[in-house]
């Protein structure tokens, strides 16, 4: 899809702010429509929104190359979109249609796309991290210089698997980028109630791994931090840990009464809305005009309309095919 706003190559936008903004906008608008579609019962099951955290996926994905691997969580619409997974195939997935990226078998929590080396969509907290270590191990063994980015929430840091994987990746010097999306809560549990050491890079550094934090509300800052880490990993620097300090503006999932946090806190964070802040910055620096933004909104709206139309037009997998994809169809 062509864009009316400057591309990263353009001198006016050396940080690629426009592209980052565009990706964030795609995520935001996509998910806003998801909410409506959930109410309309087009989408069912558990759905976790990324609204407020868009800068993290947009920034990290900007630092990755096509040969790199991505492992995400159940809150992964944003990661999938920013990684380039087709919006229509994600939406069709959430509609449960066979045209969905996972043929409607996965739903919101299980977006997969091998062509984009997007390995899910994992609904067990921490459960995707060992996969990331394994993907990186395969790259190492096969002499590829790819990086594997593993996304997880700060809640996952309490899981034993996190620890095992940090140690294993560091011990074996594997090319993993651990991206901790610290949105301060794991469902209703604030970080300070789940971790004795809330300085997560400090924890991570105890695995002899370069580790630092970035402002997860600033897409450019995330992209820079991620690029620095990816470059170092690709150069053989072993695994890195990047904490992105962010916040989810919405409930944990569609069922969360949000008893555990103050609306004031939410409003305070909303002042740091990653889209508003970046738009402001781009406008201030005259990288984009108001007209550009309007045009961009329209383009994104078109894309999402098309995605929804695609999902709506999708078909149902025949019930007789229920048993497929349990075992591979081509057996040796």
């Amino acid at each position, binding site marked *: 899809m062509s864009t009316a706003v400057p591309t990263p190559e353009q001198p006016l936008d050396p940080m690629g702010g426009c592209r980052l903004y565009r990706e964030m906008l795609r995520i935001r608008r996509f998910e806003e429509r998801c909410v409506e579609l959930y109410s309309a019962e087009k989408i069912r099951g558990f759905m976790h929104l990324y609204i407020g955290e868009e800068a993290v996926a947009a920034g990290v994905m900007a630092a990755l190359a096509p040969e790199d691997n991505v492992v995400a969580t159940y809150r992964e619409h944003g990661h999938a979109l920013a990684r380039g997974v087709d919006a229509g195939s994600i939406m069709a997935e959430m509609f449960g249609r066979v045209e969905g990226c996972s043929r409607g*078998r996965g739903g919101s929590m*299980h977006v997969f796309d091998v062509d984009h080396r997007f390995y899910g969509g994992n609904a067990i907290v921490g459960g995707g991290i060992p996969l990331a270590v394994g993907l990186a191990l395969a790259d190492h063994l096969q002499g590829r210089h790819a990086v594997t980015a593993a996304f997880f929430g700060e809640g996952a840091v309490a899981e*034993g698997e996190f620890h095992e994987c940090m140690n294993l990746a560091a011990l074996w010097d594997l090319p993993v980028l651990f991206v901790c999306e610290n949105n301060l809560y794991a469902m209703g549990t604030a970080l300070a109630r789940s971790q004795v050491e809330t300085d997560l890079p400090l924890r991570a550094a105890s695995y002899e791994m370069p580790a630092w934090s970035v402002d997860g509300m600033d897409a450019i800052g995330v992209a820079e931090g991620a690029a620095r880490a990816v470059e170092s990993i690709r150069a053989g620097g072993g695994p890195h840990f990047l904490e992105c300090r962010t916040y989810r503006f919405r409930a944990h999932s569609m069922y969360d*009464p949000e*008893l555990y946090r103050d609306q004031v806190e939410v409003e305070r964070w909303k002042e740091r809305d990653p889209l508003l802040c970046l738009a402001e910055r781009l406008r201030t620096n005259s990288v984009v005009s108001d007209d550009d933004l309007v045009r961009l909104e329209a383009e994104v709206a078109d894309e999402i309309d098309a995605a929804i139309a695609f999902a709506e037009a999708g078909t149902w997998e025949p019930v007789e095919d229920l048993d497929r994809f349990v075992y591979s169809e081509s057996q040796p």
Partner: protein
Amino acid sequence: MTMTSSAVRLTYREAMRAAIRDALQRDDRVFLMGEDVGRYGGCFAVSKGLLDEFGPERIRDTPLSESAFVGAGIGAALAGMRPIVEIMTVNFSLLALDQIMNNAATLQHMSGGQLHVPLVIRMTTGAGRQLAAQHSHSLEGWYAHIPGIKVLVPGTVEDARGMLWPALEDPDPVLIFEHGALYNTDAQLPEAASAPDISCAAVRRFGADVSIITYGGSLPKCLSAADELASSGIDVEVVDLRTLRPLDDDTVLSSVVKTHRAVIVDEGWRTGSISAEISARITEQAFYDLDAPVARVCSAEVPMPYAKHLEEAALPQVARITAAVRQAVDGG
């Protein structure tokens, strides 16, 4: 169920909550521990309000560390407490299985009877809400393989209300599986809770022609099937197992010896399900009383798909149950 003048209408969720509150009031040694049981109010709102009533020492939010807090529950039980550990859903209990099988179930035996583990572990089980492959397991029957633990599967509001206290009084580890699809079901209960005998199955409907043996989330489906079959003149008896370990063979066998036909309905995957065990036991103990082979209605052997029509096809449904019963009756 007898109606008394002081009856109250409760949902299954409220019944569980009332049971927990009751236990906390009756016994100082009781405490509830698990992910988001406190500030969030419980993932399925079972423990909502209890934090305010009992404080954070007795309503303990834990980090995402299933193995550690289940093991801590075992340790606390060894030292005289009566912990109720909540594992949010059965799907996450795999992370704590080593503690359950290698510690909770074995400590008494390995210590030659010196130790006892009066621990209750509660978890939500089952499918039917489009939560896909990692969030839809029905493993209660699988857990029933393990000597040293007991497995309760309340299928009625009354049992949700009544089973917790005897489970806490039990000197051995008891796992309680609450089916997610039952939380919103409701029933009229006498105000004064009477502690049921958790070692017995219950005949929920008497009949002469065929026995349906079931439990938990499948119970309402079986009762509907029985209603439907009654109108075609098939008189179905419905046995609710209530406890999967130890199994109450007597109730099952006396039903089958009476009806000469058995259909087992179980939401677990068919191969190696508890329904296989029940079938084997019936064959072993009542072979010559059978007028037809014991039949089973189970879940399809697939990781649960997200799409509604596929999930419905994968699970036992009234139509499949009635078909199996008709087959047992006609084919006999």
